């Protein structure tokens, strides 16, 4: 098996799926000749041609809206939006149409599209290049939200997303693009959407994380006996995996890099409160960014949850 980084793993998933299914078409700004600003689509246009790997005008709303029309027509478009913060210009398309056309047409048309976009902080990029607003998208019925945590999960989840009959927002943690190398099977494989993965077993505390925070959690927890759950799909999320773990450990800490208020951690905490409160020995804690505008590079490290924040929360729940 090859040791790949996440950029290479995503590229491989796209290439294999395009070989397997000629309905898969890639479109976006700079995805063709340039291979994408992070080189995720590198080599795809050479291999599949400009008809299948389409360099579009600078038009986030049209990229998203065009992908909706293509999907309704029977293709499987993969739209790249250069950064999650740039998807805001296409929210109307994504929310008012991508998410609703199946319902609005009573199932006559569906929208099997994937919107891929780098997201999250830790790369010292300009304004709107490091957003972590995944919770917005989880509130909208009709959209699936998937966040891999490394090369292996990225390849398996993207392959599933490309075969899914509904619109999928595939958020690629930018900080991880080249940070981790993992063994990634060359052969195609899928990881089911909606299923979390327990990456470490323990008895004392359940830690739920996703995206680039998983890497930080694993580095931070030391020898605490923790169940570490990599959520992978936020909508629909694997509540049962979390509840089963909390029933065992009686404690839960949720770690995300999005700000706290209305972050997806709130949904998880509420779910634990509704369905697992009698198993709890301690309050559920969230480790999250402060409720502030995502800063530029100089203050970025003060924004992101650190190992110290994660340790402190674990110590706190362990006091009970």
């Amino acid at each position: 098996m090859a040791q790949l980084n996440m950029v290479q793993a995503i590229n491989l998933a796209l290439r294999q799926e395009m070989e397997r299914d000629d309905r898969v078409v890639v479109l976006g700004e700079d995805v063709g000749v340039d291979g994408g600003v992070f080189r995720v689509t590198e080599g795809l246009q050479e291999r599949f041609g400009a008809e299948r790997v389409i360099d579009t005008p600078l038009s986030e709303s049209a990229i998203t809206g065009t992908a909706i029309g293509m999907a309704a027509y029977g293709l499987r478009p993969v739209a790249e939006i250069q950064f999650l913060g740039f998807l805001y210009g296409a929210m109307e398309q994504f929310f008012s149409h991508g998410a609703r056309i199946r319902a609005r047409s009573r199932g006559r048309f569906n929208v099997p599209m994937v919107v891929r976009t780098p997201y999250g902080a830790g790369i010292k990029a300009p304004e709107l290049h490091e957003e972590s607003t995944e919770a917005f998208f989880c509130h909208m019925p009709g959209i699936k939200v998937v966040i891999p945590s490394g090369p292996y999960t990225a390849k398996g989840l993207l392959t599933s997303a490309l075969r899914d009959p509904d619109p999928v927002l595939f958020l690629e943690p930018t900080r991880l693009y080249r940070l981790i190398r993992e063994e990634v099977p060359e052969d195609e494989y899928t990881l089911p959407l909606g299923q979390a993965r327990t990456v470490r077993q323990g008895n004392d505390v359940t830690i739920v994380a996703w995206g680039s925070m998983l890497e930080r959690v694993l580095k931070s927890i030391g020898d605490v006996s923790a169940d570490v759950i990599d959520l992978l799909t936020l909508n629909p999320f694997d509540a049962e995996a979390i509840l089963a773990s909390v029933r065992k450990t009686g404690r839960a800490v949720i770690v995300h890099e999005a700000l706290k208020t209305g972050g997806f951690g709130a949904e998880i905490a509420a779910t634990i409160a509704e369905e697992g409160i009698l198993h709890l020995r301690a309050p559920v804690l969230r480790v999250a960014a402060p409720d502030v505008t995502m800063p530029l590079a100089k203050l970025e490290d003060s924004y992101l949850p650190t190992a110290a924040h994660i340790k402190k929360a674990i110590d706190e729940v362990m006091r009970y």
Partner: protein
Amino acid sequence: MSEEVLATFDVKHLSVLDVEGNLDRTQIAPPDDALVRRMYECMVLSRVFDERALSLQREGRLGTYPSILGQEAAQVGSAIALEQPDWVFPAFRESGVHLTLGYPVDQLFQYWGGDERGMRIPDNMNIFPVCVAVGTHIPHAVGAALAAKYRKDPIVVVAYFGDGATSKGDFHEGLNMAGVLQLPVVFICQNNQWAISIPVKGQTAAATIAQKAIGYGFDGIQVDGNDVFAVHHAAQRAFEKARSGGGPTFIECLTYRLSDHTTADDAGRYRRADEVEAWRVKDPLLRLERYMAKEDLLTDEYRAEVRNRAVQTVDDAVRVMEEHPPPAVEDLFTHTLAQLTPRQARQLKEVTHGPA
């Protein structure tokens, strides 16, 4: 230093049938009788449907409804030039397009009656659901055209929208993309002069909407939108061009919404009665009738028969619409995603049987 002219352009206006029903035969050959009759029948059906929808709404049997009164020629004249595999992306004021294409009349009433099952488009028709968000369906049409080009399907994709939609970003992004990628899509703007209370001069400082196409690198034409033959001629030309790989076209149908914006609106608050009256004499249906009378295509019997048939179709559709059993509560959940999520499955049980 020099200054030179790099581009100049003309904007054409096409009108072939005057208010008295005289056809300018120097511009087009007279359409054949069968086509004229079909146009007439579709326009009468559209008119009767519209009248009935308004009265049903007043009786509380239909929800808010947007009238198409005055826009029948723009809708019928263009839709009648479409073929079965073509794709149509309507806005929300296109009942005449739906009816011309043979959309089940009871379903159209059903949709405006608040039952989403009315938008389950029959499998043999490629019409997208009604789009209430203004102008945002334009990129969808562009996407379908891109997919058709990719698949090498020799079809045309049409997007219908109003003058208000041309102020939206998606209008620009969609037309720009269509021009850059040379897609088989035709944009049909029904410039009915008013976007609720804002007149067209409040939407654009340009002299015509048609000229916007120039900026995107393809043809734009303004046609007399109350002249069914002019609309049909321009649409047919644009559709042929698209089908044969010639790329997009923009058609501005200059017309007028004689009614209120919707049944929830009172146009008397913002527009003058004399303006409405000036347009009433340009009624597209009267104009076609005058032409047909001159051509001996309109006998009293035929006129009555067409009207009666339309009334019968609409009566039957209203009956069928009102006989539909109410939607089941499962319908709330069925089409959100292809499969219920575990949480939705539990919620469905709660909604159906009460809290567990």
